[in-house]
């Protein structure tokens, strides 16, 4: 579920950085106010625990494939939403930096998708409501499954929205939704069961841990107002981000003048999917150099990117020259380093 930098536009990535940064600042203030110094090592070690648990794969029954847990809900149940959000942020960041899972620009999106929905939506609104203040194993099971499924569905939908909003992928919105949601339903069910198994095993062996988390976590009315404020703030920034996407999706001067081989910002419609699947219609369009014909309304104000052999050739020659220059730079640096290594002690 990690989005990659390459598929995120700066507007979407930047807006999600702003939202996530705001949530982290909020959580940090909240945690500083609580003055519970046990929380510092607990968060660190539990973050490492999630990381370690993600390295252990389990077999998904009847499929022959294997999966690993996400762990957002386990953290929320053990730490409360604020500390859990910061912990998830740290896990996702380390994954981005060390394993190239997702990228730095997409980090805001990834933390939001994997942290916000489980911690601030599914945990308080679903898990706490079902599990209650005196959780029994059955309540924990029901609460875990329901909250993990909802959290993952929302997260997966977030991925779809952010990808569609970025406009880099041609994948039609509906097709992407149909791809993502069912897969994450299955993953959510498995993860929900495992979450409840883990939480129940803690409850059996160390009931005081869960009680401490319940006491430390936000309870009832005092929380909901703050959460609402956070949620609204996030929604506002999100809207601003989406608006800025609209602004930048409308072909602006920079984008169009920069790209000599610019193309249409094609609106991905189901029509296109059918079009592609049908396959033979493509043969027709290939004979029409003015491919705008296919999609006349989508780019009224962009210059028609002519298929110009001279431009293409210049681009290819220039690209080859650029790569040659980069290679020359690399060689020069390499010989220089080799020289200094010899000269060194």
């Amino acid at each position, binding site marked *: 579920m*990690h989005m990659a*930098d*390459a*598929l995120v536009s700066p507007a979407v*990535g930047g807006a999600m950085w702003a939202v996530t940064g705001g949530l*982290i600042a909020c*959580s940090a203030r909240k*945690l*500083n106010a609580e003055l519970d110094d046990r929380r*510092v*090592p607990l*968060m*660190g*070690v*539990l*973050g*490492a625990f999630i*990381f*370690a*648990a993600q*390295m*252990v*794969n*389990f077999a998904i029954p009847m499929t022959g494939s294997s999966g690993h*847990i996400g762990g957002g809900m*386990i953290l929320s149940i053990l730490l409360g939403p604020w500390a859990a959000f*910061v912990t998830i942020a740290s896990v996702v960041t380390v994954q*981005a*930096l*060390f394993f*190239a899972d997702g*990228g730095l*620009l997409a980090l805001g999106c990834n933390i939001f998708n994997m942290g916000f929905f489980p911690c601030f939506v599914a945990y308080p609104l679903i898990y706490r409501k079902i599990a209650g203040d005196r959780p029994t194993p059955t309540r924990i099971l029901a609460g875990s499954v329901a909250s993990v499924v909802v959290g993952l569905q929302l997260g997966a939908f977030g991925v779809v929205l952010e*990808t569609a909003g970025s406009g880099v*992928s*041609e*994948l039609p919105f509906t097709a992407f939704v149909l791809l993502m949601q069912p897969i994450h339903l299955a993953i959510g069910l498995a993860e929900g069961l495992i979450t409840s*198994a*883990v939480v129940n*095993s803690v409850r059996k062996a*160390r009931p005081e*841990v869960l009680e401490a988390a319940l006491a430390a976590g936000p309870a009832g009315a005092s929380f909901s107002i703050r959460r609402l404020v956070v949620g609204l703030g996030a929604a506002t920034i999100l809207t601003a981000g989406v608006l800025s996407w609209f602004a930048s999706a409308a072909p602006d001067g920079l984008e169009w003048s*920069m*790209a000599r*081989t610019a193309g249409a910002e094609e609106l991905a419609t189901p029509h296109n*999917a059918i079009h*592609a699947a049908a396959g033979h219609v493509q043969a027709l*369009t290939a004979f029409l150099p003015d491919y705008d014909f296919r999609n006349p309304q989508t780019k009224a104000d962009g210059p028609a990117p002519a*298929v110009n052999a001279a431009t*293409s050739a210049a*681009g*290819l*020659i*220039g690209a080859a020259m*650029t790569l040659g220059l*980069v290679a020359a*730079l*690399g060689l020069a*640096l390499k010989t220089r*380093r080799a020289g200094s290594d010899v000269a060194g002690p």
Partner: protein
Amino acid sequence: MPNIESALLDLGGLDVLARRPTPIQRLDPRAKVLVALAFIVTVVSFGKYEVAGLLPLVAYPVALVIVGDLPAGYLLGKLLVASPFALLIGMFNPLLDQSILMEVGPARVSGGWISFASIMLRFGLTVSAALILIATTGFYPVCLALRRLHVPRVLTVQFMLLYRYVFVLGEEAARMARAWSLRAVNARGMPPSVFGSLVGQLLLRALDRAQRLHMAMLARGFDGEIRQAGALRFTGADAVFALGWTAFFIVARCYNLPHLMGGAVMP
């Protein structure tokens, strides 16, 4: 399950590279963090059909890998392992966008293939920038730099503790998984029921460890706040590094250098 051990080795391996004595590793971590961010923003700000314009930016990872004495094959391997998601989503572009954008002799190249190439090129550039940042700087110095750049202390301390205990708990998880696999000879993968109790056990050990850690911290005068020591000095070399690369990124973003060069040599 040897993959846990190899994942841990992998995690530590990147950090070890940062100890090589080269000019890049000696730079202030703040300069490297800021340049890496500027690089990533520059790369993703290009239009979706841009391939040629991105090529000059390849100079940044190439220069850092060579001057920083980093193993290029190792970093490329990490790139490949991370590529399936971008590949999977990008793959649809050639299928769905078949408008012809370029002609190379008799061959016609569709917009989908160009945008797919652009996605993969961007993927390679941005991911390598993140890996190179850690491999030239090390994780703790990056945390220190983030703290100096006003990232909340709760988060930077969390990064450091997480990174410290990933190895401890990762090895614990690897031992447990190995113990299970030695006793389950014919099992094909761990059944979820076993996984649940194994992870529950790991969690209990983690909680114990957190408690011991807290007591050890209290014994050493912990008052609820971790102070990050380490003096950073932003020198002239750091400024030259940061400003030089940023200027290059801006030039590469504003002028399509390959087109200019190609246009110059074409009659």
